[in-house]
């Protein structure tokens, strides 16, 4: 039993071995961006089958991180953990994540981005392969009012196709 003392279990304690690893550096940030489709849309539906793992091994990101370190850092602002000459894909994905999350779009893995990445979230990727581009997914931001408006994406003349996945 997980230890608790309150009647409503609001003080339920989690053992440290059960804590999720936090996003702390560009390596883990890159993994986050890859996992949720910001680097490349994820084929999420195929993961419903057991033993299908579309995510790359951590080694890939370790290699990237090593290569970035080897390129050297020149300066870093307090709180920023980017390195110069980040891979374009990483920066592009980071910008996209910052934009949709309502963060300052800096392209830098700053504290605000770190906090946002570590928030509790759903495991479904934000960007999926063949994602439906309809009024539910296409969101335009009304810059003047700060409101988000959905836009209807017109569909071309289509041929009905029975699809069996």
């Amino acid at each position, binding site marked *: *039993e*997980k230890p608790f003392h309150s009647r*409503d*279990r*609001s003080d*339920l304690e*989690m053992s440290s*071995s*059960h*804590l*999720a*690893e*936090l996003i702390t550096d560009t390596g883990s940030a890159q993994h986050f961006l890859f996992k*949720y489709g910001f680097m490349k849309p994820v084929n*999420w*539906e195929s*993961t*419903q*089958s*057991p*033993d*299908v*793992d579309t995510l790359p091994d951590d080694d890939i990101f370790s290699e990237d991180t090593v290569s970035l370190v080897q390129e050297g850092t020149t300066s870093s602002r307090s709180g920023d953990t980017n390195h110069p000459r980040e891979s374009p894909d990483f920066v592009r994905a980071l910008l996209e994540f910052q934009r*949709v*999350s*309502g963060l300052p779009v800096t392209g830098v893995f700053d504290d605000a981005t770190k906090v*946002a990445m*570590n*928030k*509790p*979230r*759903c*495991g*479904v990727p*934000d960007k*999926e392969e*063949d*994602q*439906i*581009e*309809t*009024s*539910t*997914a296409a*969101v335009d931001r009304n810059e003047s009012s700060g409101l*988000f408006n*959905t836009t209807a*994406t017109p*569909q*071309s*003349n*289509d*041929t*009905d*196709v*029975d*699809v*069996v*996945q």
Partner: protein
Amino acid sequence: NRTSDEAETEKQRHLQTLMRKSIGRRKRSTGALWGPAAFAKSVLTWRLIGEGYSSQLSVDEQRYIFRLAFRMWSEVSPLQFVEDLRSPPDVIDIRLGFGTGRHFGCSQRFDGAGREFAHAWFLGDIHFDDDEHFTAPNTGSGISLLKVAVHEIGHVLGLPHIYRSGSIMQPSYRPQDDGFELDWLDRKAIQNLYGGCRGRFSTVFDWIRKERTAYGEVVVRFNTYFMRDGQYWLYENRSNRTRFGDPVSVQVGWHGLPSSGVDAYVHVWSRETDAVYFFKGARYWRYDSENDQAFTEDSDGRRYPRLISEGFPGVPSPIDTAYYDRRDAHVYFFRGSMVYMFDVKANKLAPKSPRKMTELFPALTPGDHPTSNLDAAYFSYTHNALFLLKGASYWRVAGRRARKTSRSLPYNSLLPSREVQQQWFDICDVHAGALK
């Protein structure tokens, strides 16, 4: 370590599962834009699987929360959900379960407490990370299981993440605010996939009630109600939606009325009279607004319900619908294609009654007329207009203002029909089990 045969068998079983769930048609264009895909059936089964209970809440609490989560989607879409505890698991449409780390043979491992709290698949199952601190609604701490469940069900139904403040489909969890609900755009998102809610109504009316303010003044307020068979909704005109949590069963909200619902509602309101009547079949009740129940007997000691033929001589039964017109102090009873005008003061049918509906309420556009078998005649205080409803359509009766701007409009003419769901939004059924 699987053999190729085992892998092939597994693949075929997965395909069978997807086919059984009747994937909707997809449209495909050369631009690779995919149209909406959704469940092809309107009643979906779900179950919290036995090996997937949370260790944090009682099983009853978990099931209650999931029932509520499904009901919330049901209240804004044509979908209905029923908990199925009997069928074999692989025919259940939506299966839910809690797990930690590697769970249920799922390829997506949970990460422990914090960060990822659940995942789900389109037309598929929902897994919750039991290392998260899930709590019941309005607990104030932890992660609201209700909010997460509503979000994940949204994925199962076909919604992606939506980056809009206030959307339940935002990817990141927002600490629970009191009484979260599906807002207008989330409703439209799901209705974009499944369509809006349609259906005939038994009757529609504005319920007048008098209240005394803190200063002792009597003010008159009204609420709008839609009734369909044994259930009803309160419609909040200012919010363009029904009250959260509706529909409610008639027997709960309207004491003394038949549980199967009513045919018509009439409020006779004049200087001399203030009486509310409900009609069903050959009988009618008078309703006691102050005590919120039907009268058991009238002022002469005659018990309710009474025969329509006795209380309204000359009016046939059953009726389709009725309304009281304050302009001429007549009750208009609709039955088939005819309209019976009842003079309340004289307590008898008006001369030249009955008349054809098409004569009393002529169509502005030829052919665009309900002609017969109305569902409801509804005077709306919000719009200050009379509406005639039949099926999924309604006609607005041209009032004084319309006739002032267009003098050629005949008296009581019907403006062109529109769909009910274009005027009154999200009046959706829930499964009968959820109603109770």
